[in-house]
Each structure stands twice: as structure tokens, then as C-alpha cells.
């Protein structure tokens, strides 16, 4: 059963939500706490319900996976909606990540993806800000948001500290790329991916 509630951030008084460590979260997962239809991820200690994917979202995930598999060589592999052991309080399941090595190199979840991709429609602000802050803090150097609302690719790089609320981190470099642009992943600088190939 999944119920979704919305932000308390805009309301006083602030709610001191309890934050769960990744260790405890993994015990919950191992104990079978979450059923198949109970899609959650741990983000900054909070258990976040993952929204059901629409058809365009699902298509964009497959497009990103296909494009990245082509762009990255055999020294990397692409994972789709798989857990990342990001930090002590976070175990997100990004739409697509690229990690070093092959699948057999990871008896435990990978923790340092070279590229994270989220496909965003209704979750756009959440993916940009909250998730972006968590990824920046964890030192993710290359974070892409496939923005289905505006039909563009947003590329976030250069994680830096910030004084604003949230995780205390953000990306200093934000680029918005239209369909006709191309993008090279930081970890595969010689590859060129057409933005149009990522958009439904």
C-alpha cells in the first residue's frame, strides 16, 4: 500500500521527520517489508514513494539506456532503476546510472556512478532540487534530467556547497539543451549523444 503526502516544507511548524540510515533501510528491504508494488527509495533518510511511470517516461528511460550503452565502452555498464548505495542516508533508484566495470563487480550496490539520469515529468522540481542536492552532496559529477515537460535535457555538473536549505549542496553548472544539441558524458568525453535521441 502506498499513500502519498505532500510537502510540509511550506508549512509552519516544521515537522522533525525521522531519518533512516541506509543500513536500516537495507534490513527492511531484506526483510521483505516492501512489496512489488510498493516502489520506494531512500533519499536523505526519508522513504520516498516513487511515482508510477507513464508510457513516455518509460520510453525515455529505455532511450537513455540505449544511448548510454552505445556511448560508454566496455569499461562501464548501464543500470536501469537499480539501487545506488549513495551515502549513509541515501539509497536511490535512479532511472538510469552508468558505473565503472561490469555487473559482476558489484556484490553490493554501486556507490559512485559516473553518470545519473532521471526522467522527469510531474516530478521535475523534486528531481532538480531535492534529488539534485543529494546527488551533488554525494559527489555525482554528471547528473542529467530528461525534462519531458519542456522537451529538453538538463545537465547538472560541478557539485558545490550552498547555504540554502536542503542538503547544503547544489550543482554550480546547469545547462539546458534543446533537441538539436549534442552532449558528451564527462566520463565518456569522446562520445556524442544527440539530445533528440533521449527525448520521446
Amino acid at each position, binding site marked *: 500500500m502506498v499513500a*502519498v503526502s*505532500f510537502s*510540509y516544507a511550506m508549512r509552519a511548524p516544521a515537522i*522533525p521527520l*525521522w531519518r533512516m540510515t541506509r543500513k536500516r533501510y537495507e534490513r*527492511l528491504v531484506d526483510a521483505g517489508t516492501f512489496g512489488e508494488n510498493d516502489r520506494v527509495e531512500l533519499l536523505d533518510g526519508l522513504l520516498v514513494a516513487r511515482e508510477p511511470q507513464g508510457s513516455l517516461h518509460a520510453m525515455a528511460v529505455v532511450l537513455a539506456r540505449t544511448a548510454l550503452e552505445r556511448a560508454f565502452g566496455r569499461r562501464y555498464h548501464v543500470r536501469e532503476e537499480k539501487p545506488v548505495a549513495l551515502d549513509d542516508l541515501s539509497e536511490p533508484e535512479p532511472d538510469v546510472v552508468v558505473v565503472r566495470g561490469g555487473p559482476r563487480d558489484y556484490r553490493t550496490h554501486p556507490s559512485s556512478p559516473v553518470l545519473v539520469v532521471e526522467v522527469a515529468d510531474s516530478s521535475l*522540481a523534486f528531481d532538480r532540487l531535492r534529488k539534485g542536492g543529494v546527488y551533488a552532496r554525494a559527489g555525482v559529477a554528471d547528473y542529467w534530467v530528461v525534462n519531458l515537460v519542456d522537451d529538453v535535457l538538463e545537465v547538472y555538473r560541478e557539485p558545490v556547497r550552498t547555504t540554502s536549505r536542503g542538503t547544503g549542496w547544489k550543482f554550480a553548472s546547469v545547462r539546458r539543451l534543446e533537441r538539436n544539441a549534442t552532449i558528451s558524458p564527462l566520463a565518456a568525453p569522446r562520445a556524442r549523444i544527440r539530445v533528440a535521441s533521449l527525448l520521446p
Partner: protein
Amino acid sequence: MTTYPVPTRRWTRAEYDRLVELGVLHEDEPIELLGGQMIVAEPKGTPHSTAIGLTADALRAAFGPGWVVRVQGPIALDDESEPEPDLAVVSGQHRDYLVEHPARPALLVEVAEPSLAFDRRYKGSLYARAGVEDYWIVNLVDEVVEVHRSPLPDPTSEFGWRYGDVKTFRPGASISTLSRPDVTVAVADLLP
């Protein structure tokens, strides 16, 4: 400031109890389940603890036999809430609650210092929704006791309910409880 929804997954009370059974949560951790969210209970200062002790003594004396005054014990409030109010007065004997936490308290009391706004608005709305008829806040900031009664629906409140009748009592005043209107509790006896 930009705001955006944080779609947190909510917990049921049954799941929350299971976390304790699994050992993922420890029974003595300062956590309460309120409206499906796990909330960190604030550390209690010495005036807070003193007020809890004073209030427990006063309520035990006022209610007498046939009632149990529980201190920071869990309440099975609703399907998604298991708060641990500073004090709860429930009918019966201690052993009546050996298997299940009490669900229908006659009176809940929170001692509030930094948590005053939270206890008033957030917990107040949750307790009102659950039909708790008598909710007191021992307000250490203003040195008064607030009596919250008459739950009524209010869509603007956190959980869709609030107390329609809120009265403030100063030291020197006495409060009669809803469940035992024949006895009174002196405000001065509750404040440190």
C-alpha cells in the same frame, strides 16, 4: 523559495509495530508515528521532565482508582498513528493493556516548551481527528495550561480536524476533566 512536493511513503501502524519486531527500530528510540510519518521526539529538558512528574501525580490523585495514568506510553491512536504523548489517562487497569496499546484515551497531555507550535497545530489536529475529547498542553513557555476540546472538521488543518474550543488556564485556576467532571486539577500543581 521554491517549494515542491516530497512524496514520502507513509507507514501504517501495523508496519511501524513490525519494524520494532524486526529490530530495525528499537523500542526506546525517540520516535512517534504521527499520521503515517515517523517523527523524532525532541530531547526533554529538566523542566519538561519535572512537569511530567507533577502532572502524573496530580492526575493520579484526581482520577483515582479505575483509571490509569501512563507516562510516555504508546497510544494506538489510528491506523497510521502511534504517538507517545507525555501523559495519557485511560480507563481500567495497567494489565488491561498488556496485549494492545490503549486506543481511546480519556485525556492526553503534552508538556510543551520548544515544541509548542507543533503540539498545538500538528498533534492537536491529529488528536482531534482521532476523536480525543480532552487534550491539554502544559505550556512551559507561558506557564499556563491549555485545554483543547470539541474536535471539529477543518480542511485547513494538517489532518483535516482541529479543536473548536481552546481555553487557557493560569496558576490559581483549576480545571475539571471531561471524564471526571466531579474532580478538579489545580494548574499550579502541574507547572514546575
